[in-house]
């Protein structure tokens, strides 16, 4: 029996069974959106910064092959070992083989959405390797055997009591602990031991500078640095789109990244790794995994500008009320919904429809990705490629037939208001999802058209 993946509406419905929890989730993320607003509004040149960041990323995408070559050349000159991976599988194999060469069985990893996308942990575990995530939120979802539900706040869906239970079971902390201060201290002690004993550390990459061959990793916890500076082998995994041309461009991106993400003026650590330290081996794996295909999709190419700040998730009224797991993809929320169909259009056909197209995501995006426009465009592609379900298709064709002809429309309208029957929110019975929690609009005595005909004599 093959496991069928639940769709966004199904998962969202399950999430919404506990309304109090939905309110809590929504309020928590809205609070972050408000912090983002406050932070952005303290920078008068904010919109100009976004525009500049967008233009820099446009330039990068238009010349990416050359930038990657320059980056590779400069990184190599700095003593970094550079690998290229066409897909997730190859990336995972490369990590595995680096570890094998050094006879390492255990690795500490800081946050990397790319490794989530590649399912690296599962792969390494299957091959007998032990991976410990060191970002607190990542560690929590790892203990819970769940994927992260948010790219910046991996366990934003979890309550502190649940985290207390996890720590009690896995880390031996006293039962019933729910004070974040105490829980964080527990994780600090547990992970400090990990940092001190691991010979290999993997980190993500926020920005890779073509001109200097260095890469920048941003964290608040200091976990990427603790891992990398104590390990003999440092592996950094980056998507091909992480390139920026020069160091000075970091000025633009570092001003935008964290203000957009959490409202902080900057992350605690913005670490620039240029050369391995003495006696250390430093690797970079440059990963494609579908990005070059997305590059070829003119309408969706701009999604590669993303710097993974998560602002679109925090502002999304749907994300806030459906939770990250409802997107059943490593990257959730609006940005996930435009990235995922590129990887598997059938599996993620539901995601571009998990939006009201309200447009708030595009407005908060620090690199000005036209997210909601892309959601609209993905819908067209998904339907054309045949991934819309048949009943919807038939309904649409009937609707089109009626709405394309004034005569049919009027007749239908008269016959008990055609629209009442065929516009999906309009059938008054238990099978109609509109009616479950909403009353129907009352059918008026006459339509506007009828009123007009009766009351207005055209000149």
């Amino acid at each position, binding site marked *: 029996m093959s496991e069928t993946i639940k769709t966004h509406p199904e998962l969202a419905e399950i999430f919404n069974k506990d309304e109090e929890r939905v309110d809590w989730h929504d309020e928590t993320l809205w609070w972050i959106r408000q912090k983002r607003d406050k932070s952005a509004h303290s920078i008068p040149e904010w919109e100009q910064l976004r525009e500049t960041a967008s233009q820099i990323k446009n330039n990068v995408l238009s010349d990416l092959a050359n930038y990657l070559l320059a980056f590779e050349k400069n990184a190599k000159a700095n003593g970094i070992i550079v690998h290229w991976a066409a897909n997730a599988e190859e990336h995972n194999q490369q990590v595995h083989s680096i570890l094998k060469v050094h006879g390492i069985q255990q690795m500490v990893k800081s946050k990397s959405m790319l490794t989530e996308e590649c399912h690296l942990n599962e792969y390494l575990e299957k091959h007998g390797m032990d991976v410990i995530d060191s970002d607190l939120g990542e560690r929590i979802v790892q203990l819970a055997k769940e994927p992260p539900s948010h790219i910046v706040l991996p366990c934003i869906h979890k309550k502190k009591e649940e985290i207390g239970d996890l720590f009690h079971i896995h880390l031996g902390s006293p039962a019933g602990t729910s004070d974040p201060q105490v829980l964080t201290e527990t994780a600090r002690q547990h992970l400090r031991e990990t940092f001190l004993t691991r010979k290999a550390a993997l980190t993500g990459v926020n920005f890779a500078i073509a001109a200097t061959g260095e890469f920048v990793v941003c964290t608040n916890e200091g976990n990427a640095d603790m891992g990398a500076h104590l390990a003999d082998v440092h592996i950094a995994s980056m998507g091909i789109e992480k390139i920026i041309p020069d160091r000075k461009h970091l000025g633009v991106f570092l001003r935008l990244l964290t203000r957009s993400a959490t409202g902080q003026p900057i992350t605690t650590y913005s670490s620039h790794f240029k050369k391995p330290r003495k006696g250390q081996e430093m690797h970079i794996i440059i990963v494609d995994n579908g990005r070059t295909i997305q590059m070829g999709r003119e309408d969706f190419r701009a999604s590669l500008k993303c710097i993974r700040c998560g602002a679109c998730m925090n502002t999304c009224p749907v994300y806030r009320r459906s939770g990250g797991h409802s997107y059943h993809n490593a990257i959730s929320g609006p940005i996930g919904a435009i990235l995922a169909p590129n990887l598997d259009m059938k599996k993620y056909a539901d995601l571009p429809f998990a939006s009201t197209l309200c447009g708030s995501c595009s407005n908060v995006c620090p690199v000005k990705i036209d997210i909601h426009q892309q959601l609209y465009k993905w819908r067209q592609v998904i339907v054309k490629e045949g991934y819309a379900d048949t009943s*919807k298709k038939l309904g649409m064709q009937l609707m089109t037939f009626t709405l394309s002809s004034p005569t049919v429309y009027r007749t239908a309208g008269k016959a008990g208001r055609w629209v009442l029957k065929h516009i999906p929110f309009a059938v008054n019975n238990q099978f109609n999802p509109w009616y479950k929690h909403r009353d129907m609009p009352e059918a008026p005595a006459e339509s506007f058209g009828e009123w007009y005909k009766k009351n207005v004599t055209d000149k």
Partner: protein
Amino acid sequence: MKVGLFIPCYVDQFYPNAGIATYQLLRKLGVDVTYPAGQTCCGQPMANSGFEHLTGDCNRLFLDNFSGFDYIVSPSGSCVLHIKDHLHVENAEAEATVVRTKVYELVEFLVDILKVKDLKAKFPHKVGLHQSCHGQRGLYLTQMTELVAPYFSKPGQLLSQVEGLELISLSREDECCGFGGTFCVVEEAVSVKMGKDRVKDHLTHGAEYIIGADMSCLMHMEGILKRENSTVKVMHIAEILNAE
């Protein structure tokens, strides 16, 4: 100035009063306005569901009905935005392009074209204004809270001219209500929750009426209000601006 009145299908069928108020208001302001009887729908429900390729006939029909006017005015930001962004007609693209620039949502037509400064309207009630996303983020009727840019509000400008009207403030002034076209049934659970939250914001702040420039959002919120047996009513902004 000849103005074609574009009444979206669901307004025509369910909310004729919003259409009537729009018509009467425009006449009151001296506009030569006509309702072309052959119109049906802008095609948005299909297009937003991914079936834009089926909207060709709707588009042609729209063009046939409206290409002769100086302006096309409609009491729906969402439908207007759809026309502005997506009206394309084979072999008549030049004409379609002209139509795309001539179509106005009622509020922006009153503020930007007619430059209405002194409405004779009276509505002595506490009113909550719902910013419909397509009108706001698509047509820029009101400044968006996400942007670092000077504040303005076209509906606010008009409502300030209405005698006795008290505009309440909201905790989240421009959050989506969750209607979203077919989203309202495809994503029923989230849609309803969004609607409930939006309604609650208005109720908490003492609204007697929830008003807006898009009847579709209001229909969704009305459905929730009625189910909750609330006495609070929804009303299209045209009905307020036309109230005496």
